[in-house]
């Protein structure tokens, strides 16, 4: 059944992802996953037809959320599409070429290479060995994340020296700031990627200690109160999987999401007074919508798998 047919069929029933009492609706979730597959396929197709910096930034915006849930059912399906495409682009040299053209794109390339899995990396390795890629200066935590992705792709690269900063301090102290922006979310994604690295024996010692909780939950609460569904979707997933989501906040999130239809479009964009780009990452509109859809699908699956990270931590 095509996605359009599915939408038509579901139109007569309830299309929200959660019931008014906060229970996930399987049919609506399936619909969301199908739409995400379709939309991601369009993004991949656009890049394949005309590889560009803008297209890569769009893919990166989606990939940086997807990478954190690629072991969940929808995550696996979407990651498989991205991985197959990325493998083709790597074989044809497109990714290497973009990586060499602009150091700023290294993060996005590293993400795609990670999805592509075990590919021959002779060209990239040679560029790494000669100091031509992978050694430009990034903020410390991002630098660790990028180097770790290269490492996971089988590339021998220079891993940064261990950072002294405690991740809890790094993030939770930001609660004292007057205003939030995309940088906060970006930092949470980076830290979630680092926490994920603790699973890997060789990288574990490089990841600074600590698991922040206050900032992610504060941002989620703030986004819920502001009706910023674009952020709610991503933050709910991040909190549930990495930073801890107390039951009362999870319940509030489910209830709030019971007003949201099962489509990336219904998540909207962050409000205009929240800057969307940071010094290092630009996030195109279509990518932002899809990434939030991905976050929402992964949140639901994370709930269904009964994952509960640190839910006993005090809020």
């Amino acid at each position, binding site marked *: 059944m095509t996605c359009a047919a599915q939408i038509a069929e579901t139109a007569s029933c309830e299309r929200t992802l959660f019931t008014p009492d906060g229970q996930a609706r399987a049919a609506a979730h399936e619909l969301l996953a199908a739409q995400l597959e379709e939309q991601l396929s369009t993004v991949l197709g656009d890049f394949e037809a005309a590889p560009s910096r803008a297209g890569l930034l769009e893919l990166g915006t989606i990939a940086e959320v997807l990478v954190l849930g690629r072991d969940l059912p929808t995550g696996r399906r979407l990651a498989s599409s991205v991985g197959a495409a990325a493998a083709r682009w790597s074989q044809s040299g497109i990714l290497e070429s973009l990586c060499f053209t602009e150091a700023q794109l290294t993060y996005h390339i590293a993400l795609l290479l990670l999805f592509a899995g075990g590919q021959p990396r002779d060209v990239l390795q040679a560029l790494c060995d000669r100091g*031509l890629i992978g050694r*430009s200066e990034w903020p*410390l935590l991002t630098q660790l994340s990028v180097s770790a992705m290269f490492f996971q792709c089988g590339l021998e690269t220079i891993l*940064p020296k261990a950072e002294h900063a405690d991740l809890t301090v790094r993030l939770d*102290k930001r609660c*004292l*700031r007057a205003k939030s922006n995309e940088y906060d979310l970006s930092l949470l994604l980076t830290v979630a990627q680092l926490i994920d690295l603790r699973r890997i024996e060789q990288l574990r010692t490089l990841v600074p200690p600590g698991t922040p909780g206050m900032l992610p939950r504060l941002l989620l609460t703030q986004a819920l109160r502001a009706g910023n569904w674009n952020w709610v979707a991503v933050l709910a997933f991040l909190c549930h999987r990495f930073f801890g989501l107390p039951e009362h906040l999870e319940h509030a999130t489910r209830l709030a999401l019971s007003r949201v239809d099962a489509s990336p479009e219904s998540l909207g964009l962050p409000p205009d007074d929240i800057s969307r780009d940071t010094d290092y990452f630009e996030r195109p509109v279509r990518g932002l919508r899809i990434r939030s859809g991905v976050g929402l699908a992964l949140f639901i699956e994370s709930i269904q798998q009964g994952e509960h990270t640190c839910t006993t931590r005090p809020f």
Partner: protein
Amino acid sequence: MMQFLTTLLDRRKPESLAHKGLEWLWANRGGFQITESKDGDMPWEVKPLVELMFLLTVLKRHGFRYPLMDPLTTFAIETANNFDWHQMAAYDPSAATPLALLAPFYNTTGRPLPFEDTYFRYLTRIRFFEGMDRLPYRQMDFAYSLGVTGIHDYEPYLASWFENTAFGRRQHLARYSIGDLYSLTHAVFYLTDIGLQPSARHLDKETDLRLRRELIQLSAMMVRGDNIDVLGELLLCCLMCGMELGGHDGLIFRQALRFLEGWHFSDGSLPPTRAVFEKAKNGSADFASLYHTTLVSVLLYSFLRKANLS
């Protein structure tokens, strides 16, 4: 006799150019006022004022004396005293660096800080300023500036942060972005304690030699590039490291210096790029595009003067 005069003129030239730069800064001091920021992360634009203070601090710590230093110092103090630094400190952890740069400036003047020192120390103690993911050289920025104010908590990490810079990671010279170049020049400022400790602290011999070699190589590359601002900082770093600029290195240094001198305007300003140079020629270049390179030139010519005299 001719040789003597040439040497004498060469020695007086840097002093004259530094003085001209200060004249331009004084004439355009209105640009250092704190304004609302339109596109930055902070709602206030304090960078020009803080950079002016940094210049004045370095000049004073090195014992340079120019007639315009005192009026500029008074002006900077009056401007800073009319701003609520506490509000900025609480706004974002990135406020740490300007605040930390302000403190040594006030120390050199003997005047009280324009903010409650206890508040600043409180924010440091609760580690509020750590609440962000900084570039390695910005971490060095932060650690060094705090160290000058007597807070030494972060100085032990200077060396490891330096290892995480593009230079520390042995990036190929051809791949240096403008950001990577500023990272290197700022790192040298801190490692040499703005030239007061020319043998860069925390570096092993091999790294120290590589640093000196690459500073010259990057200067040569920047002579062909379109960025006088970075070139000026690289040459300044060569002087801060106390490099012996003879032979091949000296040739490149002098050539780069001549190239840079050719960009000077008679009013003392120094434009950073060809595009700004063209604008400055017809008087349409704004303060924001000229002030930083002019600050760099004042420092560069002051250090040159000192090198010549010694």
